[in-house]
């Protein structure tokens, strides 16, 4: 069963829960396991939180959340059009945070990479950031 969806919403904290719940709703009829749901919810929450906290530090812009189910694999794309990242290599290091005084753990990308099967990030300063992740949900015979 192939399917896709696209959501556009403001990069505000309240939408972190909305985004992760929406992605779970999208995959429910594949009967995901509790572990799969937990992994996906957490990864989506991390990515959207990055858009809210880092993507748009001043004026809030939009987040685009796209999901596609293809042959039992869930593909997720989360994009913002905010400040972007100068040095992607540095921000991917576990525990790195650009906001150490806000008690941030710096674990967002580590969690996305650990909980999902694939992870890619592209970013350009003052253009925005896109995160692509995927997870196999069912095996197609």
């Amino acid at each position, binding site marked *: 069963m192939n399917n896709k969806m696209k959501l556009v919403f403001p990069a505000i*904290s*309240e939408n*972190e*829960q909305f985004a*992760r719940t929406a992605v779970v709703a999208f995959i429910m009829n594949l009967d995901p396991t*509790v*572990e799969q749901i*937990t*992994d996906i*919810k*957490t990864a989506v*929450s*991390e990515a959207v*939180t990055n858009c*809210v*906290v880092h993507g748009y530090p001043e004026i809030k812009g939009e987040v685009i959340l796209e999901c596609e189910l293809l042959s039992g694999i869930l593909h997720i794309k989360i994009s913002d059009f905010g400040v972007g990242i100068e040095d992607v290599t540095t921000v991917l290091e576990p525990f790195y945070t650009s906001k150490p005084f*806000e*008690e*941030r*753990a710096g*674990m*967002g990308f*580590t*969690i996305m990479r*650990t*909980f999902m099967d694939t992870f890619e990030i592209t970013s350009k300063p003052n253009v925005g950031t896109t995160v692509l992740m995927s997870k196999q949900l069912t095996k197609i015979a």
Partner: protein
Amino acid sequence: MKITHSLSPSGLRLYFDGELDQCCEKKAKMQIDSLIEKYSNTRAVFFNMQALKFMDSTGIGVLIGRYKKLKSMNIPCYIENPSFSADKVFIVSGIYKLIPKL
């Protein structure tokens, strides 16, 4: 997310109920800090996470901040009964090396 508490001879127990993410982070920190300050003579603090239905790495930041505060007050703290969701995030972060799991 709701935080309730109980006091016993073993210490101050903080019960996390709901979902802990960046949205409720500030309020959670204020509530926890206020309880820690109110019961500053407690012998230990237990973060009970049994009813925490969801947690992302925001929770790690919240707990590390509270750990540092409690350390400066010489009060040990522990994570109790983490839910499945929270436990996986805790394991990846390595936080159990700082705040032991019970």
